[in-house]
């Protein structure tokens, strides 16, 4: 292993700035590793390093999930319906990272239109988990997670709608941050569920997450839901958790499908938090357990609307048969969308159809209000709510593909936060049966600086070696 691979992105930027390493050397090393990817993590790798100037990210290359539009670069959202699509514009999040000095190394594989928790729904084949190639890396940002975990790229961005940054980060042994809704512009992100989608960093450690996130935030005239973050994002430095109040939801121990090893690792880190000075108590989020039900109405409903645009007219696939416009639409969408995307379009269309709207969508949006109220009440007593990120470790490829509901329940701990619009991070929390587990910290809207500090203090105490799987 080259010494360069042992360095975090922030350390690489520091060495480049100090002229101890050249940008070219860093680019070439990672370019070679990304091009030799045998995890199916990359869908496109850049040929040459673009000149990105001197910015705070110091020339350290990054990868973007396929659904981020990049001008002239294949941007397919993991779907065959967008095969070969090269957008005429670039997503704001990507533009800001490039402007801060990081060149784009490649586009990463994902579940089609970000719908999935295992990356098995990609139209371009599943991604393999570098910890165990017979297992999934999580999803939907599975390519970004696997690429960072395997040292194919120093850091990456993904999107989180119901857990799609945090869950693959947990299953791949890295850090993933889902920001407050609106903190990062969604302009140029191929949409899944617009009221939930948020871009976030996937990185080797908490400092890298803070550094990358710090350049992504800001109000964007191209996204009316984006906001100016009230605080500049700082690099974390907390050494302890003195005075920090942590709430552990009372149903963590009884959550569906929770594995004993995951629970054990979670309890051990709660105990570490107490040693670092945190006050820990049980909290009640009575409606969070209904998060999956509300999510699987709201997200498919929004998706059914967002995905109406793929009709074989303006871009992407067209399957024509000389039998009229309607037949062209239905055939194109049948051929172009994978099974899970068709399922969610059906679910969402059903929930929004005449006679069912109030029973499903209306009720789900009321449950969403209750979930947000639960968090608001919890944050009057606690600084953060902590849970395991995923109830289990990475599962074998194919283990859950025949049971959509079992797959959806992977998101039990991650779905409530986007429904409430609040930020949350997943940090590596040691191993269970030789595979990574994640520890999730959620806080009120715009509390990212505090979350990053708490995550940093815990990261030092846990001492997880993120370089462990670099081949």
């Amino acid at each position, binding site marked *: 292993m080259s010494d360069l691979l042992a360095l975090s992105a922030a350390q690489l930027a520091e060495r480049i700035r100090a002229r101890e390493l050249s940008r070219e050397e860093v680019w070439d090393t990672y370019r070679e590793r990304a091009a030799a990817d045998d995890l199916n993590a990359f869908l496109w790798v850049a040929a040459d390093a673009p000149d990105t100037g001197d910015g705070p990210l110091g020339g350290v290359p990054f990868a973007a999930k396929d659904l981020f539009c990049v001008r002239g670069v294949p941007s397919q959202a993991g779907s065959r319906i967008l095969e070969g699509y090269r957008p*005429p514009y670039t997503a704001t999040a990507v533009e800001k990272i490039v402007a801060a000095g990081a060149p784009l190394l490649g586009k990463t594989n994902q579940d089609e239109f970000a719908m999935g928790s295992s990356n098995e729904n990609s139209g371009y084949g599943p991604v393999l988990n570098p910890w165990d190639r017979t297992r999934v890396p999580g999803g939907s940002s599975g390519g970004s997670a696997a690429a960072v975990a395997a040292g194919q790229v120093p850091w990456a961005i993904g999107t989180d709608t119901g857990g799609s940054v945090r869950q693959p980060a947990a299953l791949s042994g890295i850090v993933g941050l889902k920001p407050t*809704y*609106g903190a990062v512009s969604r302009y140029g992100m191929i949409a899944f569920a617009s*009221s939930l989608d948020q871009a976030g960093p996937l990185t080797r450690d908490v400092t890298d997450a803070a550094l990358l996130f710090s350049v992504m935030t800001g109000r964007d*005239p191209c996204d*009316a*839901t984006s906001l100016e973050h009230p605080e500049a994002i700082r690099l974390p430095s907390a050494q302890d958790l003195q005075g920090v109040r942590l709430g552990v939801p009372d149903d963590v121990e009884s959550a569906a499908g929770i594995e004993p090893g995951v629970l054990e690792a979670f309890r051990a880190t709660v105990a570490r938090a107490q040693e670092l000075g945190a006050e820990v108590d049980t909290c009640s989020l009575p*409606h969070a357990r*209904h998060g*999956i*039900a*509300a999510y*699987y*109405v709201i997200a498919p409903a929004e998706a*059914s609307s967002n995905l*109406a645009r793929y009709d*074989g*007219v*303006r*871009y*992407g*696939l067209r399957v024509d048969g*000389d*039998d*009229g*416009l*309607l*037949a*062209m*639409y*239905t055939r194109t*969408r*049948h051929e172009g*969308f994978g099974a899970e995307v*068709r*399922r969610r*379009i*059906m*679910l969402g*269309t*059903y929930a929004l*159809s005449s006679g069912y709207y109030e029973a*499903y969508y*209306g*009720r*789900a*949006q*009321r*449950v*969403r*209000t*209750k979930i*947000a109220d639960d968090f608001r009440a919890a944050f009057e007593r606690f600084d953060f709510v902590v849970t395991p990120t995923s109830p289990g470790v990475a599962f074998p490829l194919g283990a859950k593909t025949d049971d*959509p*509901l079992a797959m*959806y329940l992977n998101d039990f701990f991650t779905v409530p936060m986007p*429904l*409430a*619009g609040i930020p949350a991070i997943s940090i590596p929390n040691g191993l269970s049966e030789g595979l990574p587990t994640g520890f999730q910290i959620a806080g009120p*809207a715009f509390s990212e600086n505090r979350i990053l500090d708490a995550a940093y203090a815990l990261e030092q105490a846990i001492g997880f070696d993120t370089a462990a799987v670099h081949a």
Partner: protein
Amino acid sequence: MIDRAEVLHVARLARLELSEGEVDRMASELSAVLDHIETISELELDGVAPTSHVVEVGSALRADEPRPSLPREEALASAPAVAADGFEVPSPGA
């Protein structure tokens, strides 16, 4: 709880073609998910306002000033079929 006829009706609304085998599978898979979703029908939600937006935002209106947009040739560059400077589609009546 969702039958073949409803699946076909929803597929038509969604402009999705489904093969024969897919119709039955979709009916059983959607039913399983809808059964789980049904758990929210037990909640007391009277008087609870539905969420319309998760974070408070002010007016998103901007000044209505003309500015350049995507050039026509770029907008058409990815289209499967183009005719007379526009998107070409099969006849609706065919």
